[in-house]
């Protein structure tokens, strides 16, 4: 055997182990959702059933938690995307000697353990709302939105920063020269340019919020979200109903991922079409100039 085939066999072996490790647990869990045995298992299959899914829909806590999670996720998008955008725009404008200080502060939530973010949010707002006599703000959903947004805004900021790096300042200059105000430049040039980043960071923000546990479990106080209900259930004991939930989540997210991919491809195609059109127009213009010079 040549060393090339040895290498290939080793690579295939490694890939099999890697992706086995990656998907094995999920497949096992997925199969156990359809098995009749009351303990989640893949082998032996005692019979196929959908009753675990039914049980899930009748679980009032889960359904309530799901609604709460969706509601929180929506608010996290509303809060984090504008905050992330503002922080990214500020990065290039802030006083140069304060920049690294500012960077450390706004990036720190990414590196802080989620548990600590949850605790500090609750501690701060409990004292602040007590001191200012606004105890109604000390509410699980509000705390969860603030706690999660604290680090999700940082994710959004990083995405906006990488997009802003590619922004051509000449576009802004052109807008200003043509008589637009700074505000118009922001709304008609910068925001359209940032649209892909806004879209991706909104999706990322929602998903990060929806699946978050570490921060939420502290911030949510006495209220519940899907993940906190789930954590309680898993600690009490294992039932295939939890596997059934996993199957549903996987199904929904696979569909979501496919839609996301399609939308992104269509946007790419549209952009390509616009570029091609612009290119063609330029060529035509050049040709006509050439013709004109020939005639002359």
């Amino acid at each position, binding site marked *: 055997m040549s060393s090339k085939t040895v290498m290939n066999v080793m*690579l295939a072996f*490694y890939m099999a182990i890697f992706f086995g490790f*990656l998907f*094995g*647990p*999920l497949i*096992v*869990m997925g199969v156990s959702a359809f098995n009749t045995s009351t303990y989640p*298992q893949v*082998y032996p299959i005692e019979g196929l059933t959908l009753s675990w899914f039914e049980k899930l829909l009748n679980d009032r806590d889960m359904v309530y938690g799901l609604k709460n999670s969706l509601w929180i996720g929506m608010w996290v998008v509303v809060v984090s995307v504008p*905050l992330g*955008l*503002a*922080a990214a725009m500020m990065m290039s*404008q802030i*006083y140069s*000697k*304060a920049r690294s*200080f500012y960077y*450390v*502060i*706004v*990036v*720190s*939530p990414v*590196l*802080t*353990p*989620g*548990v*600590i973010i949850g*605790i*500090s*949010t609750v*501690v*701060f707002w409990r*004292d602040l709302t007590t001191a200012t006599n606004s105890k109604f703000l000390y509410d699980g959903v509000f705390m969860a939105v*603030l706690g999660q947004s604290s680090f999700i805004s940082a994710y959004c900021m*990083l995405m906006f920063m990488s997009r802003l790096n590619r922004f051509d300042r000449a576009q802004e200059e052109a807008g200003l020269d043509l008589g637009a105000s*700074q*505000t118009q430049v*922001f709304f008609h040039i910068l925001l359209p340019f940032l649209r892909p980043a806004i879209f991706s960071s909104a999706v990322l923000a929602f*998903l990060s919020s*929806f*699946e978050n*546990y*570490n921060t939420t*479990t502290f911030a949510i106080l006495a209220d519940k979200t899907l993940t906190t209900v*789930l*954590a309680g259930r*898993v*600690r009490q004991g*294992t039932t295939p109903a*939890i*596997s059934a*939930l996993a199957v549903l*989540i*996987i199904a929904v997210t*696979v569909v979501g*991922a496919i839609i996301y991919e399609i939308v992104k491809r269509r946007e790419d195609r549209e952009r390509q079409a616009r570029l091609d059109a612009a290119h063609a127009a330029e060529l035509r213009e050049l040709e006509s100039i050439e013709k004109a010079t020939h005639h002359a």
Partner: protein
Amino acid sequence: MLSSTGHPFIFLLPVLAIAIFWVMAKFEPKPVGVTKKSFFERNGTPVAIYLIVAVAFWSLFMIVLPQLFMVEMSFRPKLPPIEMGGPKDLYTFENYHYFIYGSTTSSDAINWVHIKAFFLTIFASLLVALFNFALCYPLAFYMAQVARPARVRFLLLLLIAPYWVNEILRAFAFRIIFSSGGLINKILLGMGWVDQPIDFIGNDIALYAGLGYAYMLMMIFSLYNAIETLDHAQIEAARDLGAPWWHIHAFIVIPFAKPGIASGCTLVFMLSAGSLAAPLVLGGPRSLWFTPILYDRFFQAFNWPQGAAYAFILLLACVSFVLLVLRLGRLSLGEIAK
């Protein structure tokens, strides 16, 4: 010192920091002949106000002040609400004292349970990070340098897919596999390799596997991004000069990808040390992980100041780890947090 003085002082800190930078900016010698537009002129008034309000709210009310409040709370005694701010509310080290020496009623001189859990968590998180690096490096290298673009795209999709499922469910999947009646034990028993089911959960093997699994993606992406920028010609050149494959990795790829390796290991370490879901779901009855202890300070002992102290200890450990990695790798924070 009475702790009622604490909160106004904390609010003063960021104001002071901003004032110092503002004064520095005001008195900085300006280059002659260049007129710079002011912040408001550059952005337009409405946008400028939005930027200032958003950034101030986020960085002060969502990042800095909560952290400072938590640290301040960790130096307070546990008191019933009526006595808070009263004469008994004095700053104290008792919560940190408790972490090291335990309660005064316990028979041990030192609080071994919590200290052991803390160091075990740090140590195990380090191992998880190293294990993840070893597992992910070949794939990251393959994707970044060997595979064709179409295949890379496909592999990336495959890699991301499991991470759409939430952390608790991923841990739950490991629980199904590793439990005493789970798949692995059934296979081992069926093959006749063991005659008693192995207690993977009690031995924390399930926990380490689950943690490694949970944060693999961070490692892969950090490594992939770093290795991808390496010019393939360098590898070719080394090969032409007769370098064995492990020389290429040890002396070219790994030194080049150092920032990526550092950032991957830091992320995985931090996430493992701070993770709560996996230890709660996969921890056995005797498992010692620091975050569940922290959790119990709040929800079982109802001792918030002590919980805050424990959280601060964890935070300090994480910060020192980052600083250590930066120091050892001679890197800047910007290279790690990407």
